[in-house]
C-alpha cells in the first residue's frame, strides 16, 4: 500500500502549479516577471510543469536596469529560446531617457527604486493584468503578509492594510480596468526549499550562483563586484576572491560571499549552515527598517 501524503516539496510544488493554473484561468494577459534570479527561474520551471504537454502560456517580462551581470542576460536569452516564449523588456535606461525618472545622485546611488516606474509603465503599455513574481514570504517582513493573488490599484500601488482575505484555496482575481494583480506562486517556499527544489529537479541557474573567481571590493559588509558602474571610493582596493552570489539583483548592489561551493550539492550544504538571511547582502534593503515595505507600497516587485 502506498502512502497517501505528499512530502513538503511535492506539496509546495502542487500548490504553486495550482496557483499558476488559476492565473491562466482568471486573467487575460498574464506575464512572468523574470529577473534571471533563481526564484523567477523556479517559477518558470513550475509553469513548464503546470501546463505540460502544452507550452508555457505566459510571456516573460524583464525589467532591465541596464546594470546587469552579463551572465544574467545570457542566461535569460537561452531560457527564452529553450521554452519558446515571448520576452518583454522594460528598460530603466529608456525611462531615464524619456524623462520618466531621474537617476539617483550621491555615493550610494542605484537604479533599484527607478525600476518601479519602468515596471508599472511596462505593465500598462502591454496591458498586463497579472504579473507573476517569485516573491517569497520568508524573504522580508513586508512580504510575510503578501497574498498569493495581490491586488494593485490603478496607480499600481499595494495597500497592505486593505488586502483581500484569502481563504482555503479560493483565489479572487477580479479587478477593474487599469488595476492589476501580482501573483506569487512560491509564497510559501523558503530559500532552503528553493535550493532543495533546484537540486532535486536539476534546474539550470546562472553561473553567478556558483563559486567563481571575481574582482571585488569590500563595501557595506559584503563583496561588491567590480564593473564599469562601480566607482572606487577612497581606501577601497580591488581584491580577487572566490565568491558566489546568494541573490541576483543589479550588479551595483548585489554583494557576494566568499565560498567554495561550486556544485548544487555544496550550495545546499552551505545555505543550510548560513547564519545570515540572503537579503543581508542586498544594500537596497539596508536603507531603512521599512525600505522594502515602502517600495512595495509604491508598486515594487
Amino acid at each position: 500500500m502506498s502512502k497517501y501524503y505528499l512530502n513538503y516539496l511535492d506539496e509546495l510544488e502542487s500548490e504553486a502549479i495550482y496557483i499558476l493554473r488559476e492565473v491562466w484561468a482568471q486573467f487575460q494577459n498574464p506575464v512572468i516577471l523574470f529577473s534571471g534570479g533563481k526564484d523567477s527561474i523556479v517559477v518558470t520551471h513550475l509553469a513548464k510543469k503546470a501546463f505540460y504537454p502544452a507550452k508555457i502560456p505566459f510571456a516573460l517580462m524583464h525589467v532591465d536596469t541596464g546594470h546587469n551581470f552579463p551572465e544574467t542576460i545570457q542566461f535569460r536569452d537561452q531560457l527564452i529560446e529553450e521554452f519558446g516564449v515571448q520576452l518583454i523588456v522594460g528598460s530603466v535606461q529608456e525611462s531615464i531617457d524619456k524623462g520618466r525618472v531621474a537617476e539617483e545622485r550621491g555615493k550610494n546611488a542605484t537604479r533599484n527604486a527607478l525600476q518601479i516606474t519602468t515596471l508599472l509603465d511596462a505593465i500598462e503599455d502591454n496591458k498586463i493584468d497579472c504579473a507573476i513574481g517569485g516573491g517569497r514570504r520568508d524573504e522580508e517582513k513586508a512580504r510575510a503578509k503578501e497574498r498569493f493573488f495581490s491586488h494593485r490599484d490603478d496607480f499600481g500601488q499595494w495597500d497592505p492594510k486593505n488586502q483581500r482575505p484569502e481563504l482555503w484555496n479560493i483565489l479572487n482575481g477580479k479587478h477593474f480596468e487599469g488595476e492589476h494583480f501580482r501573483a506569487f506562486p512560491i509564497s510559501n517556499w523558503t530559500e532552503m526549499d528553493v535550493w532543495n527544489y533546484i537540486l532535486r529537479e536539476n534546474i539550470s541557474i546562472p553561473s553567478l550562483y556558483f563559486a567563481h573567481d571575481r574582482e571585488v571590493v569590500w563595501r557595506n559588509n559584503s563583496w561588491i563586484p567590480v564593473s564599469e558602474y562601480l566607482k572606487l571610493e577612497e581606501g577601497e582596493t580591488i581584491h580577487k576572491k572566490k565568491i558566489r552570489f546568494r541573490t541576483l539583483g543589479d550588479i551595483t548592489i548585489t554583494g557576494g560571499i566568499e565560498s567554495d561551493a561550486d556544485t548544487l550539492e555544496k550550495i545546499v550544504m552551505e545555505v543550510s549552515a548560513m547564519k545570515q538571511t540572503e537579503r543581508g547582502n542586498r544594500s537596497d534593503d539596508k536603507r531603512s527598517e521599512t525600505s522594502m515595505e515602502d517600495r512595495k507600497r509604491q508598486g515594487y516587485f
Partner: protein
Amino acid sequence: MTIDNNQLLRFTTAGSVDDGKSTLIGRLLYDSKSIFEDQLEAVSNTSKRKGHEGVDLALFTDGLKDEREQGITIDVAYRYFTTPKRKFIIADTPGHIQYTRNMVTGASTANAALILIDARNGVIEQTKRHTFIASLLQIPHVIVCVNKMDLVDYSEKVYEDIISQFEEFSSKLYVKDIRFLPISALNGDNVVNRSEHMPWFQGAPLLHTLEHIHISSDLNKIDARFPVQTVLRPQREGFIDYRGYAGRVASGIFRPGDDVTVLPSGFTSKVKTIDTFEDSLEEAYAPMSISMTLEDDIDISRGDMIVKTNNQPEPIQEFDAMLCWLNNLPARARAKYTILHTSNEQKAMINEVVYKIDINTYNRDEEDKELKMNDIARIKVRTTRPLMIDEYRDNRITGSFVLIDDATHETVAAGMIL
C-alpha cells in the same frame, strides 16, 4: 540530507499580545535555530531602542510598519521554520475581537491551531472565541498551551483547573483532537525543551508534539472530487489529440480505469490517464496537481467537477451555511453576490439570516439580521445554478465558498456548507 519524506504542517496561532503569543513564536523560531544573525541583530537593536531588557522575542513576528508603531499585529503574517522532522508554516493572526476575519483566514488552511491561555487568568472570552473559530473552520488538531506557568509557580493545580474550565465550555463544540500543554514561552519551558520546573507533566514539549501529530489522515481520502481548473490542449506534435483536464485533487483517490461522472452535465466516462510533467501515475490523491484524460470526448470546462460515479456530491441550488462576514460594508438584503466554490463561479443571494452567533458566549441571536464585519451567522443561500457541494465537515475544499461584491470585487464573506 534526509528531506525526502518530511511533511508540511500548517498551524495557526491566535492570541493577543498579552498572552505571549508573539513571544511563543519567537521562542519556537529561536530555540529551533531558525533565526538568522542579521534578524537577531535587527531585533536586538529595536529591543534596546525601546528600552527592553535583553532580546524581545516577540519582535521576530511583528511585521509591518503600522503594527510596529501600534504594538499590535493587524493581519495574517506567515512564518516558516524547519526541523529535521517537518517543515512548518505558521499563520500568525491577531486575537482581538475585531480581527475575527483574520483568524478565520489563518484557520482555513491549518492542520493545527495553537490556543494560548494566560495561566494567571484562565479561560477568558478570547479563549472561547479562538476555540469557536477552530471548531467552525474544522481545524483537525487543537493544542491548548497554558502559558506563563512561571508566574503561577509552575502549579499543577492551576493547570488542571484551567483544563477543567476549558473542557466544560468546549463540550458544546466539535473538535476532533484536543491536547493540553503547560508552558512558559518567556523561559522556554516545554516549548522546544522539556521543562525542569514541571516534573508532574508527562507529555512531550510543544515542538515535539507539532513534529509528531499524525496529519496524513486529515485530508478526505474517501470522496473522490476533481474540480477542473483549465483544459490543456497542446495542439503540437506528439500531442495533437491530447485533451487534459488540469486541476488539483480536492479529496479521495483517482486511478486510471475508474468510472467517473462529470458534473453538472452528468456524462459518464472512465479515467484514461493521470499525467504530470514527469510521468503518468497509477493513482492521484489530494492535494496533487495533475492533468486527467478521459476515455470519451466530452465537453468539459473550468467549473466542472469530475467525481467517481459511485460517490457523487449533491448538485444543489439552495443550502444552509455558516458565514463569516469579512467586509466593512454590511451585507445588503436580497443582494446578489458572486460566489466562488472550487473552480466554479455563479451568482448567489443570501435568502435568510437564520441566526447570528456570539462567538464569546455561543448564544444565538435570531432577531438581529444585519451581517456586519466579523459577524458569524447561519444563513440560507440560493445560487443561480447548481453547485456540487459536500458538507464542510466532510470536505474543507468542496464544502467551502467565498462571496464577492460585484461593486468592489472584494471578497466579502467566507462560507462553510452545512
